[in-house]
């Protein structure tokens, strides 16, 4: 029984991870992770570019889409 519950839980977590990935919802998490690892070794505070807040990030994303549109196929 426990294994079944566990299987359903991990299955739905994997599905949620996949759907979010394909829809692009994980973009902010990826951005934050990138910013963290990028400068993890750096002691110098100057080197750190300020990390955008979630709201700023999504606005920046649509600004980038504005400037650089992506085609959708027929």
């Amino acid at each position: 029984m426990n294994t079944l519950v566990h299987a359903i839980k991990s299955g739905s977590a994997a599905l949620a991870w996949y759907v979010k990935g394909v829809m692009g919802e994980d973009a902010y998490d990826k951005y934050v992770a990138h910013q963290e690892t990028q400068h993890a070794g750096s002691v110098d505070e100057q080197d750190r570019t300020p990390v955008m807040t979630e709201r700023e990030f999504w606005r920046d994303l649509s600004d980038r889409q504005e400037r650089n549109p992506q085609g959708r196929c027929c």
Partner: protein
Amino acid sequence: MASTSRMPVTRSVDTGVPDQDTALPPVSLDGAAVDGGSRRWTPVKIAIWIAISLLGGVSWVMLAIVRGESVNAIWFVFAAICTYLIGYRFYSKFIEKHLLKPDDRRATPAEYMADGKDFAATDRRVLFGHHFAAIAGAGPLVGPVLAAQMGYLPGTIWIIVGVILAGAVQDYLILFFSMRRGGRSLGQMARDELGRIGGTAAILATIAIMIIIIAILALVVVNALASSPWGVFSVSMTIPIALFMGVYLRFMRPGRITEVSIIGFVLLMAAIIGGGMISETAWGAAFFTVGPVPLAIGIIIYGFIAAVLPVWLLLAPRDYLSTFMKIGTIGMLAVAIIIVRPEIFVPAVTSFAVEGNGPIVSGTLFPFLFVTIACGALSGFHALIASGTTPKLIEKERQTRFIGYGGMLMESFVAIMALVAALSIDQGLYFAMNSSAALTGGTVQGAVAFVNSLGLTGVNLTPDVLTQTAADIGESSVVSRTGGAPTLAVGLAHIMQQVFGGAGMMSFWYHFAIMFEALFILTAVDAGTRVSRFMLQDSLGNIFPKFKNTAWRTGSWLATGIMVAAWGAVLVMGVTDPLGGINTLFPLFGIANQLLAAIALAVSMAIVAKRGLFKYIWVVALPLGFASVVTIYASMLKIFSPVPGIGYFAQHNAFVAALDAGQTRFSTATTLPAMQAVIRNTMIQGLLSILFVSLAIIVISAAIMKTAQAWRSHSNATSEDEPIASRIYAPAGFVATPDEKKLEAEWAARPEALRTQRSGH
């Protein structure tokens, strides 16, 4: 846009890959283990591949040789899947091993240009979904439906064999070449590889082709929605739904994309159900019954507004909705086809394939089958996607085979399912729906008389089949609902109602299918207008530098206006065409798409030749040769054929002669203005054919010249970016092999901070 500013450097390829950081676990499986998982042929593996081959072989025999009264749809599914598996396992691996030679020791642009935004290493399985959602649209749903008039076999063979030898090869090659060049676009690669004339021709051809493709996709929507109050209501509701989603994401819950897509999906279902109720009321039917011309004008105005509005408000949320619907519906259809397994009564090959007198698309199998089914077998448009976002997100080089080649196999499977859905409907109904109103008169009696006069074996259409189907799907009529979308929707509804809801749900499923096709197409129209506007601005910028500044409002509105006017003109021409519209214009769509494929393959051939890989250049030359022959021959027929049904100018001259002879009605044009419209339309279509074929011939010739030059000079150069050592690892295929799992575990054991840390920029 780091990729545009960097100049391509042609250099010798012997530059080795820099040494790997020895503090890290290996970033690549070593030579033996790369193929290790597959090279060791265990008895179990051999047995599995023999079983796949046998099942595939039996399925093809059932389709091609055993011809009973009917054939079951499951054989299409098995034939397709088994052949894809063999093509993927053996042919794409062959290309990988001998032609592309991906090297996981090299960092991809997503790694060495990582910015956490545009360039970001993405899980291969997620990226596969991403890439698939970007390449698959209405194209593979429409072409196979129209080609079904030639029988089921030619279309099936072309979709399956074509994708393995041509379509998937093109997508894989362009994705790989763009990835090796920092994610450079097809246009930029054309300029780099083919020189100024070839490159400019490639860019002009791309813009012209985009115009035609947008126009014809829009025509499909107009044909599906004209005089359908239900469809008009539910599809137009997608605009307020998308606006709501945009506002929600912008101001209320930024980033909650899945959440808002689910809300949007629920609203969309409500719009479909509501559409059914509204179309039954007198005021609803009166208000939402819109003729083709006002509908076309509506789409043109909408296209302009959508292209100048901020992306977050309309374009992005609609795209989320479209992606959500796409993956869900396609999955659902696959399951339904396997459960229902419809019987198909269509002959394998009809006389139309040989005689070229089919009412839906005129012309014989060769070359017109290959331009009618473009997407699904070989789609040049994909080269724009494969050199767009995807190469900037690839984590490891060896994943390109799964994403590029594998993604296209998936689209081909969508085409096969569309074909099955269209084939599963009654033959007589199929011809009544797809023959233009010029032939059927748009009435039930006219359609019955016309279809029964075609002399198809086993087809005896009765009026009640048409009236009953119309009543089942909640439409006033099914006669001459051309463009492929309504036919597919009937087929899909027919299959889906057997799984979910029964006959009472037929009308819901029909409008669900129309909605989902319209959603894809409108997304493609919005995005296509925007992309082509940027291309136009970039090209105009070479003459008037001010246009390069895409933030310049006047310039961007002007460029948008030009693009919308161009596709709008073709759309109105198609909608008002006395000859039927879709049947005269669809060949242009297919030719345009295949010419773009020829351009992409020509660029690929030049790259392969420059690299000195002449031993395996046939991998590119084969599909390039075929696409060139098919499209140039089809274009020549469209320009020079003396048969009015095929040649645009022959049709033109026939009408001019009739007009000069003082006739006021001729062929299917019943009035003088209709005759003048035909004369005008055929001239424009003919000139467009000449333009496309000339540009394509220039590009292909440039590629052949570059190839010959490379051959003579024993070239061994490349315009790839300098190799940079990779510092990350990920498996190549969907499922990790045991060796890959072992290495993955080694990486996973490292502390998070050390795993991807690197000095960037």
